[in-house]
């Protein structure tokens, strides 16, 4: 899409692109609670969304969003770890109730309040285990400004199509830095939709078609809607652990895993005959791109994988890594979160790690590890 402007090169930040993309993808409400470094998203959300509400805390934020989603709206919020931690129980609720929404998680340095104005990539393992029962919640990680646009729209799409909360994972340096950017590289975004029940026959709030139940808002008067955060049967009535309710709980897992199979977003830049692979996501991918380019200039053959679908993790990542003699994973933490996500506690010896605490990983650090 050519943006209708006098030219296309602008000085812009990722927050602006994300919110505009979400609005075009059908998001119609932003519920905000201030937290650094997510404040630009809040500010833009307040300018862009049809409905904007300032919540008194992050638990309220998620509850308001859930209520809105039950009426058919697609709500968005943005936060960072301290706020996200407060949201976790309510995100579980929305997950169990199967309510679409997008939560932008801007990573900053922890633990706890850590350093608000310092970026990090330390929340991936939290996301992997945040749904009680270990069920996967879809997580997409942006790597550049085009992702801020495309993946934001995809997050909205997945949320609506799969009836689930989706986390758009980013970090301080990605959403607060201004960069020159060519708007003509942005694609057209179609508004996302939820599959509605066709109003014929009996409606059961959680009866799935292709893993996902059809939606009806609680504002219509044709069919009874029951939403439930507790274990429930297909009608949405609380049950202890009978076959039907366990089937429904199992379905929560299956719908994400099965339906996300076709949502494996990543960028792969493979070099012929390369035996080394750099893997980096989010903010670190920009350093990885530079490192790859410089290594190739130095006649070092190397491939690059930038994973974007983080959860559920596509099998392809592992399959690809297995083909390489040496893999260097770079991320802004000190405990190999992505490596652990892929391999558990037994990370193979040929998987090397470049980590950092409180500062961005530079291309040079990645190069050094690749050539070691």
């Amino acid at each position, binding site marked *: 899409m050519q943006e209708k402007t006098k030219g296309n*090169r602008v000085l812009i930040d990722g927050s602006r692109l994300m919110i505009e993309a979400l609005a075009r993808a059908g998001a119609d409400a932003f519920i905000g609670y201030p937290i650094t470094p997510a404040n630009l998203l809040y500010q833009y959300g307040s300018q862009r969304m049809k409905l904007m509400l300032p919540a008194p805390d992050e638990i309220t934020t998620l509850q308001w969003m859930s209520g*809105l989603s039950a009426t058919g709206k697609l709500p968005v919020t943005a936060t960072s770890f301290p706020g996200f931690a407060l949201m976790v129980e309510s995100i579980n*609720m929305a997950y169990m109730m199967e309510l679409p929404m997008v939560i932008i998680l801007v990573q900053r340095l922890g633990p706890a309040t850590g350093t608000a104005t310092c970026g990090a990539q330390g929340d991936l393992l939290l996301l992997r285990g945040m749904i009680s029962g270990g069920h996967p919640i879809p997580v997409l990680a942006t790597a550049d400004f085009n992702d801020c646009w495309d993946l934001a729209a995809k997050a909205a799409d997945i949320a609506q199509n799969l009836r689930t909360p989706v986390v758009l994972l980013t970090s301080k340096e990605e959403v607060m830095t201004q960069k020159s950017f060519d708007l003509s590289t942005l694609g057209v975004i179609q508004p996302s939709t939820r599959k509605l029940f066709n109003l014929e026959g009996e409606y059961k709030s959680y009866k799935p078609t292709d893993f996902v139940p059809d939606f009806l808002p609680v504002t219509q008067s044709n069919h009874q809607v029951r939403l439930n955060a507790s274990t429930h049967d297909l009608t949405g009535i609380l049950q202890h652990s009978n076959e039907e309710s366990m089937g429904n709980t199992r379905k929560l897992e299956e719908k994400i895993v099965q339906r996300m199979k076709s949502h494996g977003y990543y960028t792969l830049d493979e070099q012929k005959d390369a035996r080394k692979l750099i893997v980096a996501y989010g903010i670190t991918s920009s350093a990885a791109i530079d490192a790859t380019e410089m290594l190739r200039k130095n006649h070092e053959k190397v491939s690059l994988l930038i994973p974007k679908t983080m959860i559920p993790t596509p099998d392809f990542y592992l399959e690809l890594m297995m083909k390489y003699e040496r893999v260097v994973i770079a991320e802004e933490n000190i405990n190999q979160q992505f490596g652990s996500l892929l391999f558990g506690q037994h990370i193979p010896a040929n998987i090397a790690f470049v980590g950092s605490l409180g500062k961005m990983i530079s291309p040079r650090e990645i190069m050094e590890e690749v050539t070691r």
Partner: protein
Amino acid sequence: MNIPFLKTDALPFCKGCGHDLIAKNTTKALEKLGFNPLDVIMVTDIGCHGIIDKCLNTHTIHGLHGRSSALGAGVTFGTEEPGKKVIVFIGDGGSTIGLQHLMEASRLNLNMTVVVHDNFLYGMTGGQTSGLTPHGFNTTTSREGNPFSGYDICALAHTAGASYVSRVMGIGDISDKLAVAFSTRGFSLVEVLEICPSYGMKLNPRRKLSEIAQSAGKEMGEWLNNRKPFIAHQGRKTDNLLEKVNPIAPSFKSYLKKTTSMILSGSAGEGVQLAASILAKAAMRSGLSITQKGSYPVTVGVGFSTAELNLSPEEVHFHGIAVPDMAVITSSDGLAHNKQRIAKMQGGYLFIDQSLEVPPTGAEVIRHDFRGMGARNASIFSVFFMALKTGIISTECLFLTIEAEGMGEKLPVAKIKEALVK
């Protein structure tokens, strides 16, 4: 009315539980008011009262402990259709976990009703003391009587701005009292006092509900605020965020052959970030790619203010700056914040105000009187000076950018021109 609100009269509560009375009177009140069950959204909390869901023909939403009034609030925000009713059932325990949510719904005066099932204890989890348990009342966790007094939830909601608040004894037919709340425009809260036979009665034998209420100072009554309800504006005017950013077409040339990283640093309130954005936009006008970020202490009005920029003839991916190619320092705050990075510079330029002591550095040092232009203008002047000395951006392009950004009045353009000639 064709469909009844209740599927059955045999409700799933212990014999004699007040929840039975509240549920039946709620549905009776709704029937009296002429509601269709599917125009009612019942949001229930965790607690015995919450198991009413399966008996209702309304829409039902069963949420988390204490959060149902916020969840109900979310539903009201999204409900544009007239004739809908959002009702939240919550217990005394839930009302204190979610006290903030009740206060918020009262403050915003949302179109919904919360019915607090106040039986003075947590029933479902075994009869523990809650925030609404009266002083002296026995619970399983205070066998000698609650040493604290409970919140006056009605006074709190009223003070926070609810349109209608009432306290009702959960005895006999209370449907008309509930109907008043249900037909209120704005937020209404009804605290219904009741006894939990399984714990409350057993642990407080021979005590009557009316006596408990009286000794706790829980007066029956109504409290009103004459306020308009909050209606969420779904269709408010919104901006296309991309139309708000001005495109910058290249009209100048830059000789820059490789990425140059730069820090501009001074004190808060001295226009460092503005100077950086003028420089960034001028660089774009010169056909360069740019990254620009700011850092400052949490209290943005004091201490250092640093801007980091990368200027490049090619697209910039990695934008972090460990050691800059150039540093432009206009105050002691800025110097202190960047001393370590300046010490690591092996080449490039350090532009520094002449009032400051030159720190150890491998960069070529250029001292100048930037602050002589006035503290507020030191940073923008330093950018011009740096541009003139290095030639990476033409000063003409900087002047044009100031003009294009509408900053010509705010910045001392003439003074800068004059100083540059010197």
